[in-house]
């Protein structure tokens, strides 16, 4: 198995491997612990939480806290649960992801296959936009959304997420199309194919992986956003993350830890689901966002 057995004694190598596995397993348990605690707490009754141990499995697991978090928990003054906010998030995420991905694909296509003088500056400026602290655009955006009558609306949040997601989607597609052979595009041009035809028939069919990467990256980012949500949609229109924070940090009444945790599970489920189903692509997106090419 290991290359070491010919030089060092095999016994020593085996001890080292036991140590490595032990260390990795302990670390993995530490990483899993908060999720485990969150899940089992959401399945316990309040009495059991107060009297028992955080790590103990629930004596009689019940989804009562989940039902309450979904449909009855009080967020602010209205006690209708988080379901409305969950849908707000869905209604915000789906259009924002689709629009920003489509625009990113077109931008990446132009920036690699139809270059013009200054294309580097344009790309550089779009790239920098990925990294700005959003605090630097918060006040003007709040002002503009107010003027347009879009404060507290899903439409406003979709617009905001499309705008500030463009940099990343453009980056993903640009780097992907950069590696796409120019010869194919040129051949199609000589055959008389136009701009959109080349995009539609030649680039798009082979863009599957990068489309998945971009959609997952955007989905995770937009679903998990909190700053834009709390700044531009505080009340009924707020997304899931804002509602979760309002629920958990409210100090009125009895603190229902199980309901808090159930709500947190609901907020975590969509992105965790995507991660479990398509983790490979999620990691690729993270890396592409971190290590620019």
């Amino acid at each position: 198995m290991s290359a070491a057995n010919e030089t060092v004694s095999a016994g020593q190598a085996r001890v080292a491997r036991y140590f490595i596995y032990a260390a990795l397993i302990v670390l993995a348990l530490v990483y899993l612990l908060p999720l485990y605690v969150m899940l089992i707490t959401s399945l316990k009754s309040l009495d059991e939480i107060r009297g028992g141990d955080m790590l103990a499995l629930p004596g009689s697991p019940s989804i009562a806290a989940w039902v309450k978090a979904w449909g009855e928990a009080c967020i602010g003054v209205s006690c209708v649960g988080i379901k409305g906010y969950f849908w707000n998030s869905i209604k915000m995420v789906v259009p924002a992801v689709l629009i920003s991905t489509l625009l990113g694909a077109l931008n990446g296509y132009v920036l690699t296959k139809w270059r013009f003088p200054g294309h580097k500056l344009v790309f550089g400026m779009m790239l920098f936009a990925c990294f700005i602290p959003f605090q630097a655009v918060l006040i003007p955006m709040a002002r503009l959304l107010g003027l347009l009558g879009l404060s507290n609306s899903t439409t406003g949040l979709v617009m905001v997420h499309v705008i500030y997601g463009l940099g990343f989607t453009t980056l993903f597609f640009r780097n992907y199309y950069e590696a796409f052979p120019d010869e194919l595009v040129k051949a199609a041009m000589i055959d008389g194919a136009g701009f959109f035809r080349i995009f539609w028939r030649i680039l798009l069919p082979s863009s599957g992986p990068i489309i998945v990467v971009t959609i997952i990256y955007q989905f995770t980012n937009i679903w998990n956003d909190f700053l834009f949500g709390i700044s531009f949609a505080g009340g009924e229109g707020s997304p899931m993350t804002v509602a979760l924070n309002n629920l958990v940090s409210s100090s009125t009444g009895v603190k229902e830890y199980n309901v808090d945790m159930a709500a947190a599970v609901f907020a975590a489920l969509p992105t965790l689901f995507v991660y479990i189903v398509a983790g490979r692509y999620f990691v690729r997106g993270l890396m592409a966002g971190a290590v620019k090419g």
Partner: protein
Amino acid sequence: MTTIEPVPFVEPQRRSRSFADGLRNTLPKIVLAPSFAVILVFVYGFILWTIYLSFTTSRIMPVYKWGGFDAYFRLWSQPNWYVAMQNLAIFGVLYIGICIAIGLFIAILMDQRIRAEGVLRPIFLYPMALSFVVTGTAWKWFLNPGLGLENTMHNLGWESFRFDWLVNPKMAIYTVVIAGVWQASGFVMAMFLAGLRGIDGEIVKAAQIDGASTISIYRRIIIPLLRPVFLSAFIVLAHMAIKSYDLVIALTGGGPGNATELPSTFMYSYTFTRNQMNVGSASAVMMLMGITAIIVPYLYSELRERKQ
């Protein structure tokens, strides 16, 4: 590697139809233009707007009366702002340092031809898929002084164990570090692992033949070869640290008191709840300057390298 061609098509023998060619030349720009215009207005224009606001006398609403550097003087005379800067320094240094240390350590362990890599890797990485608000909520409960970790340790028989960092103003910022490291270190691990997999095996083999021990191979050869990954990880983590907002809000709400105030929470509260919009803008400008100082040289060098 890649050749940069300003105009990608050469068709000498085609009939030149000025209109069709003109359209061909402009259509791509027409497609790109809306996105670029949006970025120009909503990123760069809005940044200028914020900068302008920081030089006005705006309080509860934006006003455009010139106030000079007043907001900056006020910002730098706020004890709160110093707390925020100090916390950012503590949080930033520990968050970046520990994430890189743990990330590298796990990546090296994972690189020893581990059998269950496919199971372990997703476990280290899943926190990155969670919202900071979920992370904050989970850790707030986990570290709850009465019912959380402290209670568990008592149940295990360690009666004197005390862990009240969440409500202890002196220690609260370290709970933000713990939760932040938990969330991002797996990602740093993935970056290092990709870097380790990219290292030429021949170099390592040659060192093994020369009789170098595994530890000295890592110390002398492999880790120095990972320098670009260290840089990328630093950039990513530093910019995440400056932007951190959700995690603090969900975990400590900036408290107890103002013990875990960060520039991002300072900016939000001064702008939207304390009615000092010009001071809030000034703090946003400071954050932008910090990020620019880190990101622009990095992006510049990354974009230039490709040219050769």
